[in-house]
């Protein structure tokens, strides 16, 4: 590690992994509720488990992005972080606000939470992924501003690399588009439309810039390929991401009361959205093939390659599957959507955060470049366990989705929703099984931090 202030990344990474565990536990609870309907009812109704599951996901990914920034921005800028104290303070504020919000979901009925946080003053609650009380949302904005200030000042005073610049644009975009979370008109069509300015413009817009820059950083470090080459790729990838993804927002405007022309704009542009994801895969493999060094940290390289492949499968292939409006007419809001959501989030954002953690953690723990061989083997096992089980989760949900679409929306005698759900129960059991394997993979992942802790690291080959 080159700069002592990079150390502030460590608590961010640890918190991220901790919250990841919580996310998966609630995923398993929901998976069970899908087949044993009254499991934990009325203590933890499905909607509560779902909020915990998805909000923990977003929060831990944000912890991951922030930790990643605190780690790589000083190194790229070749200077200490502007204010490590501010970074530590924001860590605690974010963690406490996050924990309090999750406890609020679990301990009181949602309507009570809305009441005690005075949602009526500025109603923003009760919308998917944006369930947080308004006060929490304001807290998120404050933490984001302090974070951007800290990162921005560091970049300003130091070396300005393309990676830092792209990361900064992505992070600023993340904060700016989050502001749409505060816009909640009485008109449900307007509400839905601008809701996507947070959700879509995040995952298929500015987050791709963050993803690209983190991937580029890990690849520069682990392959030793010339920066010029990597930066050129990065620019092309993010250019394609925004050129296709901005108008691609239209794939959410087919059936929510918006004009019919979006079926054209949305289908055509979002059909091209897989391009940047495909380029990421090619990029990652190309750079690793052209490597000038054998980096001793093999899992970091594995996660980086995995990100390319799985992001392309989850976002690119599974996204394309249902993005054309004549297809989406039938698949909209079914298990097909859930299948895609899982693999895309895992492949793109979970895996890139785990890649940067994998790269940075050995140094943050005082090692030169890598963990012991034993620890690396365990970590690679966890990679395969989690990744393969996620593939199966996706396949089982896709199976459920195809049957659901057929029985409920396409057959001559369409059946009611709940009748169909009973008929496809088997797929939900299989998904739950795959989910348990995912949890085992996650436990193995955490074990890798403790196994072979006192053993020496392998030498650079």
């Amino acid at each position: 590690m080159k700069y002592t202030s990079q150390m502030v990344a460590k608590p961010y990474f640890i918190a991220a992994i901790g919250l990841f565990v919580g996310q998966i536990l609630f995923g398993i609870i929901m998976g069970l509720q899908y087949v044993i309907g009254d499991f934990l009812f009325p203590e933890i109704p499905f909607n509560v488990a779902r909020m915990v599951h998805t909000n923990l996901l977003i929060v831990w990914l944000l912890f991951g992005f922030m930790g990643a920034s605190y780690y790589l921005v000083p190194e790229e800028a070749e200077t200490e972080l502007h204010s490590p104290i501010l970074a530590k303070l924001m860590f605690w504020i974010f963690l406490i606000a996050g924990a309090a919000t999750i406890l609020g979901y679990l301990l009181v009925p949602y309507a009570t939470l809305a009441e005690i946080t005075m949602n009526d003053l500025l109603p923003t609650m009760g919308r998917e992924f944006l369930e947080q009380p308004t006060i929490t949302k304001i807290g998120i904005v404050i933490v984001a501003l302090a974070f951007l200030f800290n990162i921005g000042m560091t970049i300003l005073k130091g070396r300005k690399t393309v990676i830092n610049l792209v990361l900064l644009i992505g992070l600023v975009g993340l904060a700016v588009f989050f502001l749409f979370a505060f816009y909640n008109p009485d008109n449900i069509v307007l509400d839905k439309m601008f809701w996507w300015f947070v959700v879509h413009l995040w995952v298929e817009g500015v987050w791709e810039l963050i993803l690209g820059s983190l991937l580029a950083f890990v690849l520069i470090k682990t392959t030793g390929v010339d920066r010029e080459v990597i930066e050129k790729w990065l620019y092309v990838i993010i250019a394609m991401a925004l050129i296709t993804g901005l108008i691609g927002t239209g794939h959410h405007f087919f059936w929510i009361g918006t004009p019919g022309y979006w079926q054209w704009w949305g289908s055509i542009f979002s059909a091209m959205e897989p391009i940047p994801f495909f380029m990421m895969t090619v990029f990652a493999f190309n750079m690793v093939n052209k490597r000038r060094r054998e980096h001793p940290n093999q899992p970091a390289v594995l996660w980086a390659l995995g990100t390319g492949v799985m992001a392309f499968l989850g976002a690119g292939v599974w996204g394309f599957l249902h993005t054309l409006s004549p297809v989406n007419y039938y698949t909209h809001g079914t298990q097909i959507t859930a299948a895609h959501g899982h693999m895309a989030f895992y492949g793109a954002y979970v895996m890139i955060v785990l890649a940067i953690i994998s790269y940075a953690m050995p140094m943050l723990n005082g090692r030169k470049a890598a963990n012991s061989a034993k620890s690396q083997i365990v970590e690679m096992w966890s990679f395969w366990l989690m990744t393969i089980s996620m593939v199966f989760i996706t396949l089982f949900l896709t199976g459920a989705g195809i049957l659901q679409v057929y029985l409920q929306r396409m057959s001559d005698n369409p059946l009611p929703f709940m009748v169909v759900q009973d008929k496809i129960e088997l797929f939900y059991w299989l998904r739950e099984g795959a989910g348990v394997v995912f949890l085992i993979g996650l436990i193995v992942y955490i074990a890798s931090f403790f196994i072979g802790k006192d053993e020496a690291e392998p030498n650079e080959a």
Partner: protein
Amino acid sequence: MSQAFTKSMARNIFYGGSMFFFLLLLVLTFDTVESLPQTDNRENLTAQVAKGKHVWENNNCIGCHTLLGEGAYFAPELGNVHKRLGKEGVIAFIKFRPKNGIPGRRSMPQFNLTDDELDAVAEFLKYTSEINTQNWPPNIQG
């Protein structure tokens, strides 16, 4: 990537391309907002409907259901539930959920809504069912 294609060309495509398509998104968004009155059923957006939307949000209905296909996939689509059950049917369904659920089945919580809240949320769902959604969902089952 080939040598003739330089980094600064790539950078220019990024800045130029994203600027252009961001502006295009703004233009299309503006046009959509202008033309929404033709499709979003706003002439029926009464105070009671607005109130119903708050009841909908304050009880996190979207955490189990979809509304116009967006939300969770655990429970039925509600954008057209007014057409399936009618206003009285919707109210009765919400009102009579057993507190401890239905053994072994996916259960909807008992929200203890007042009569006025029940009326409001039913009005909200009626309003939603009249939005022009380009003929989605494909059939009454949602």
